[in-house]
């Protein structure tokens, strides 16, 4: 069972309070009515499904109710960081670098 830091509650809580909500940073096209079938497929269906760093959404559904984003490793299931909805995607190289530093410090 995961332990997830909610950026709104500013606390780590059990996964039981959360609901996964799929990939983060996939914006619904502003002009969605006008996009092509291929663009719609891209938006709605196609996913990176990375082995490693993933940016994903969670909802603290049985907590503060907020959707927020997380950067997590899909192999170790370790969370690198979580951040509020609307905040920019953290720099990947920064995340991985700081992880390496942490590893080195150990």
């Amino acid at each position, binding site marked *: 069972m*995961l332990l997830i830091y909610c950026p709104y509650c500013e606390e780590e809580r059990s996964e*039981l309070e959360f609901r996964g909500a799929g990939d983060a940073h996939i914006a619904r096209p502003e002009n969605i009515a006008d996009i092509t079938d291929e663009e719609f497929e891209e938006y709605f*269906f196609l996913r990176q499904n990375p*082995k490693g760093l993933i940016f994903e959404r969670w909802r603290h559904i049985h907590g503060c109710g907020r959707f927020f984003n997380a950067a997590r490793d899909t192999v170790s*299931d370790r969370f690198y960081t979580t951040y509020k909805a609307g905040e920019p995607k953290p720099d990947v190289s920064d995340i991985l670098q700081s992880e390496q530093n942490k590893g080195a410090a150990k």
Partner: protein
Amino acid sequence: MRKYSVFAVAREALRGHKGWGPHWASPEPRKEYDAIIIGGGGHGLGAAYYLAKEHGITNVAVLEKGWIGGGNTGRNTTIIRSNYLYEESMDIYEHSLKLWENLSHDLNYNVMYSPRGVMMLSHNIHDQQSFKRHINANRLYGIDNEWLTPEQAKAYCPPLDIAKTARYPINGAALQRRGGTARHDAVAWGYARAASDRGVHIIQNCEVTGIRRDETGRVVGVDTNRGYIGAKKVGISAAGHTSVLMQMADVRVPLQSQPLQALVSEPLKPIFPCVVMSNSVHAYISQSDKGEFVIGAGTDQYNSYSQTGGLQIITHTLDAICELFPMFRRVKMMRQWGGIVDVTQDRSPIQGVTPVPGLFLNAGWGTGGFKATPGSAHLFAHLIAKGEPHRLAAGLTLERFRTGRLIDEAAAAAVAH
């Protein structure tokens, strides 16, 4: 290949089983093959076998990054059934079931297909409507599936609690008598042995690290940890790792990889004659020939390649099992594990060509891959050999996600297993 039979076993018994050779050869990879299949699970090994057997293409390699049958083939709860709703699904799962019925003979390997019946419990009117829709569709399609009253269900599976006072009382069940189970390892090993016998190279500990294409974009081979291997045709049959491989060819696919959990109990004397599933309370259970209760749980809610999951997922399933079978509370869980399933949005598989010429895809089987093994493998071999899908798999192509012709078994049945 040495033929397996009771006589061969008896002969070997008298000389300490010294005469058995390897199930499959372990050759060094060639520089080039006519076709490469990435993924040494039941689907991949089976496809190689059918390429050799039915299409005469024997210069084939199956590349497996670990040990064959070590992915979802060896991690599932071995349920076999074909009572799906949509024609696309019925086509492939029934094709598969028919192959299961003769698979041990075909492979000369006892895969222990055991048609002990798969019973799906109905707990409310919505279930009943949905099951009857399946039963009627199956019947008109020539697939067995029948409605049972609660009493008939209890007669078929005596431990079942059909009390009306239960939290979710059982108001009937759908039974597919030809459904059942098979021995998962035997499927991988049986296909491997039969394919190897026909000249297919099974190469374990061989991880694909790149997919090479020529200037026209056509596949020419793969890079692996054991060097470059050429092939004009490459089939990907790698379940949870499909997205990773497809990205080596710069193709994104509509898949998510999630942990699917299962568990077994300690071995107990047989009491449970069939497979029981309940979508409403999220449980499926059978008892293996060793006496272990084999119980399938759900997927975790996040993507992961870790083959582990949370305690709460199996708890949720055991809640339901103990409610349906209150005497099982004193049974003990012996082992739990996870697999990585690749799930599509419509919970139906993808089999077909890809935007990259020469690259073929078999994926998205989600939680239902084991039962499809022979059928999927057979049709995937056809796809690789002919370059276009077999009639029975024509609806499973990638383009449905663009056009919207989804095969939404989940929407139709609430949950697809």
